[in-house]
């Protein structure tokens, strides 16, 4: 039976001296460690070991064709930062991630707000919007390659038919358009997933908040900024973090549409790493690029979480 402190002094005393936590019984603690051991071993095998191996390879002269790698210290890092390929690829990767994040968030927030409204066919629309996300990437890329083809693509035909162009644009073959085009394709592929997350957050907002705000005379914009946005903010932060990390590592869409071209205009770091490893066969240098990219992403994640507004990256548990 718990006794309630009778006076304020007693309560203060209890708060300032909380009961010391009892040590876990040895058997229970051991059992806990045993239960968690398989997961820890699995993580070590699938994440820590490959990462450690990648770091080791980045310090060697390994090439993709095998042979015995020799330890070369940091010379692979000196090469990749000194030969003028890492910097431009890194900047392109940043532009790719930021451009993609902005586009995807705008698409997703817009789509989620629309789908949150009540209208006939709402459920069908909510399902149908997932189409671009659930189809395989290879289908997405071929679809867009066909639609954007300069010779027979429907997009050029429509633009030419509308008199907006006097000759077709090679969207994926032109240095002017290729980067923006692949960012668009990637955003189109991924925004349904983000829509789903934001929509889930929207459904958690009780209608009473809107009703109360309306009674107070809030405008639509105020409803969005003062009610909707604060509620979906945690999701937007998580989406921003995950979306950026995923975007940076996207390889398939770029490779299947442009292979990093034309003239390197779509060569982001993952593409550059692939070329270094499997076209130049320099596995050591490719690993050095991978490690550098991983460190950057780690740093980004730490800074992002550290400077995110309090509570933005935590979900309350009801």
């Amino acid at each position, binding site marked *: 039976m718990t006794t309630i402190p009778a006076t304020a002094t007693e309560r203060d005393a209890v708060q300032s001296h909380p009961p010391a936590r009892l040590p876990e019984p040895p058997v229970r603690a051991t059992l806990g460690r045993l239960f968690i051991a398989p997961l820890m071993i699995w993580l070590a095998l699938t994440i820590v070991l490959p990462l450690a191996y990648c770091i080791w390879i980045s310090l060697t002269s390994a090439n*993709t064709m*095998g042979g015995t790698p020799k330890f070369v210290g940091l010379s692979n890092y000196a090469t990749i930062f000194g030969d003028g390929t890492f910097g431009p690829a890194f900047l392109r990767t940043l532009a790719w991630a930021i451009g993609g994040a902005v586009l995807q968030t705008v698409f997703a927030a817009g789509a989620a707000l629309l789908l949150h409204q009540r209208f006939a066919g709402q459920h069908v629309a909510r399902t149908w919007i997932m189409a671009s996300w659930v189809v395989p990437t290879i289908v997405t890329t071929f679809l867009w390659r066909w639609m954007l083809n*300069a010779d027979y693509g429907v997009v050029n035909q429509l633009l030419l038919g509308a008199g907006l162009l006097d000759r077709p644009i*090679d969207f994926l*073959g032109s*240095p002017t358009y290729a980067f923006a085009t692949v960012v668009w394709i990637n955003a189109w592929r991924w925004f349904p997933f983000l829509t789903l997350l934001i929509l889930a957050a929207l459904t958690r907002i009780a209608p009473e908040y809107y009703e109360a705000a309306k009674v107070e005379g809030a405008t639509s914009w105020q409803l969005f900024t003062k009610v909707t946005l604060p509620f979906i903010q945690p999701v937007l932060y998580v989406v921003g973090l995950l979306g950026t990390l995923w975007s940076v590592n996207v390889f398939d869409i770029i490779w299947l549409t442009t*292979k990093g071209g034309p003239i390197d205009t779509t060569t982001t770091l993952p593409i550059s790493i692939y070329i270094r490893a499997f076209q130049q066969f320099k596995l050591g240098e490719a690993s050095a690029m991978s490690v550098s990219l991983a460190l950057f992403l780690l740093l980004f994640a730490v800074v992002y979480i550290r400077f995110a507004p309090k509570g933005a990256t935590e979900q309350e548990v009801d």
Partner: protein
Amino acid sequence: MKTAEDRNLHQRLAARLTAGVMTGAIVLSVGVASAEPIQITLWHQEQVQARVDQFQKVIDAFNASQAEYQVVQQVQSWGNIYQKLPPAIQAGVQPDIDFTIPDFTVTIRETGAVQPVDDIVAEIEKKHKFIDQALTPYRDEGKIWAVPVYGMVQVLWYRKDLFKAAGLDPESPPKTWEEFLNAARTLTKNGKFGVGVPVSKSLATDQVLYSLMSVNGGTELFDASGAVTFDTPKNVETVNFYKQLSELSPSGAASWTWPEPQDALNAGTVAMAIEKGQYLTPFEETSGQAADQLGCAPIPVNAGGEEHSIYYSNAAMVLTSDPDKRKGAAAFLSFILEPANYAEFLLAEPGLFLPLTVDGASEAWTGSPILSKYKGCVDLMIGMSKKGVLPGFNTGTVQKAIGPIMAQNLLSQVVQKVVVGGEDPQAAVTWGQEQMSAAAGQ
């Protein structure tokens, strides 16, 4: 004197021994009766279903012709074979045979798994002599590293009906660069284009550029010492010529690889294209024209140049060191090159796969339903095979740097810089020279 107990013991031992021997004999006889044929795993990168099916016919015929070996094909892709084969070799699960091209062979030889095949080639050559262009790319360090199985060569394809409609003589295709350019200009009108050349970063662009380099004195990318010699006035002239051709090509050429020029030629959107023999099979059906409306000619030559074309000798690398499997691989490759089987094998892609043995162009092959309609073009391609060249493989000493140079598509990157990026041809060729030298470790 033996006691009754001893006798019983001996009888029991004798009975057990007899039973053991009989059991052993039965097991042995069952084992011999059910001895499995040795499996020979064949990888190739010809993914088109018709080619896979035709290969299977030949494989089935081989498997049925003897009981010792069983060949199994596993289809791979040129898109990922560079990433797939080296790890397979490192893990010891590589195929016994892999179909290859010369620069891929150079790359895979670095793994140490590629076996010399001089003995197999010598045995085959007793009956079927290879043309020089077939074997030269695979000779290096005094050994032969793959058994040639089929060739591919580029020629100039053109639409005779479009030539006629533009007022050009369909029986006089361009022979020089000047004629080529003039014809392309004449043919470019009313939404039609004189020529279709790819400008993407791809092997397709590499091949067309190299064919044009080869007819303008640029067959070699290396000098005798192995130094890269790409930056020459002739190659600058060739890149500039490529740019002029691209201006007479459709807008989307920067994304083109192999299928698009062919589709455009069949659709009548372009009148000329430089490519290999895959143009024959679908021409009538997709163009709606009779076979005689597809023209072919040697690649036009620049002043002072010689008639050449890029030539790929496709071959079989033997990747097993197991003596029994090696014998099986040799038997299978010899079987393929027997004229009766070879015709069937080459018809996996009529016109694209060319014979590279002196007796390979058999009646069974040339008289096939498709090839018999294009006899002139088939003869042209066989003739051009003997003038075929390939960067880094023309001297009987392989330049190792050619592997990474071709894998990085450096030739097509030069083209892209000029055509798409608007760079000066000299500057782009100088850049190409630097990149190739870096790839060569120079």
